[in-house]
């Protein structure tokens, strides 16, 4: 029971962060809905674990906990992949910035001479 209360407190904290980020405009509607549903889903599985068994049977996995672990691993891999793509994009933007600065700086010197 203690673990359930601790997890619920954590979920409440995360949800509050999600709401704050949505309100200050740093998170879009899609992000807000996905994160809210995800964390509310965690709460449902936590307090009504039978739901996970029902869900697991539907997709052909024996135990609900196993299904949750499998899905979590897939979600984590997907998250890591998305982060990798995002990081690459930021790296490219940074390079563009550094390149433009180098060329502009050179051209400014060329004009002075």
């Amino acid at each position, binding site marked *: 029971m203690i673990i359930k209360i601790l997890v619920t407190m954590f979920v409440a904290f995360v949800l509050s962060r999600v709401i704050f980020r949505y309100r200050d405009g740093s998170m879009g509607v899609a992000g807000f809905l996905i994160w809210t549903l995800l964390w509310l889903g965690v709460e449902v599985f936590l307090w009504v674990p039978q739901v996970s068994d029902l869900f697991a049977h539907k997709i052909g996995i024996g135990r609900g906990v196993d299904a949750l672990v499998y899905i979590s691993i897939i979600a984590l891999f997907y998250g890591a992949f998305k982060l*990798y*793509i995002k990081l*690459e994009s930021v*790296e*490219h933007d*940074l*390079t563009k910035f*550094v*390149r433009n*600065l*180098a*060329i502009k*700086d*050179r051209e400014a010197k060329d004009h002075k001479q």
Partner: protein
Amino acid sequence: MKLAIVIPAFNEERVIGSVLKQLPRKLPGIDSVDTVVVNDGSTDNTEKVVNSFDVIILNHIINRGQGAALKTGIEYVLQHDADIIVTLDADGQHPVDDIEHLIAPILAGTHDVVLGSRFLKDESNIPPLRRGVLKLGVIFTRILSRIKVTDTHNGFRAFSQDAASKIKIVQDRMAHASEILDEIVLNKLRYTEVPVTITYNAYSRTKGQSSFAMFKIAMKFIIAKITH
């Protein structure tokens, strides 16, 4: 004909001076030679050494990798109407005397890109592990990029203006070498290889890519091919 030599440099204070000193001022069929060093966020005295020569220096404020530095240099010289662009490493591995042979096919109008190859000459100076890894790179490139070359990671290259403007380098780090080969195929550019001798010494071995790093580069290139 205007020739531009682009040299990406990262912490090369010890050798870049001797490379710049050896660069040709005049070449047959060439009216002017401009040298552009892209100082890729060096933390040593590379900038100071380069500034003591009559060359153009472009400073990356932070290190962005060899591919990024090459692209910066190429973009700059294209803006300044270079007809032929030669790229070479700053660590003294590439013999500058070979520049004449490297640009000859472009001057003759028979090719758009000329790639230096260490495997068309005597290979005995190439360390065995490096030779093995590079040969694997050749097979890897043949499968992925469908280009038949004997040396895939040789930074000693020459491009015509048209070829340099068509080749898009996206990879900031070392995977740009495979990317250039890919672009040659995609843009249907006429390419050839010329034999060059690579000098392996204690310095170049510490500066060059480790054989293990080559595998990391290959992985990066595969991921880039999937994600782009």
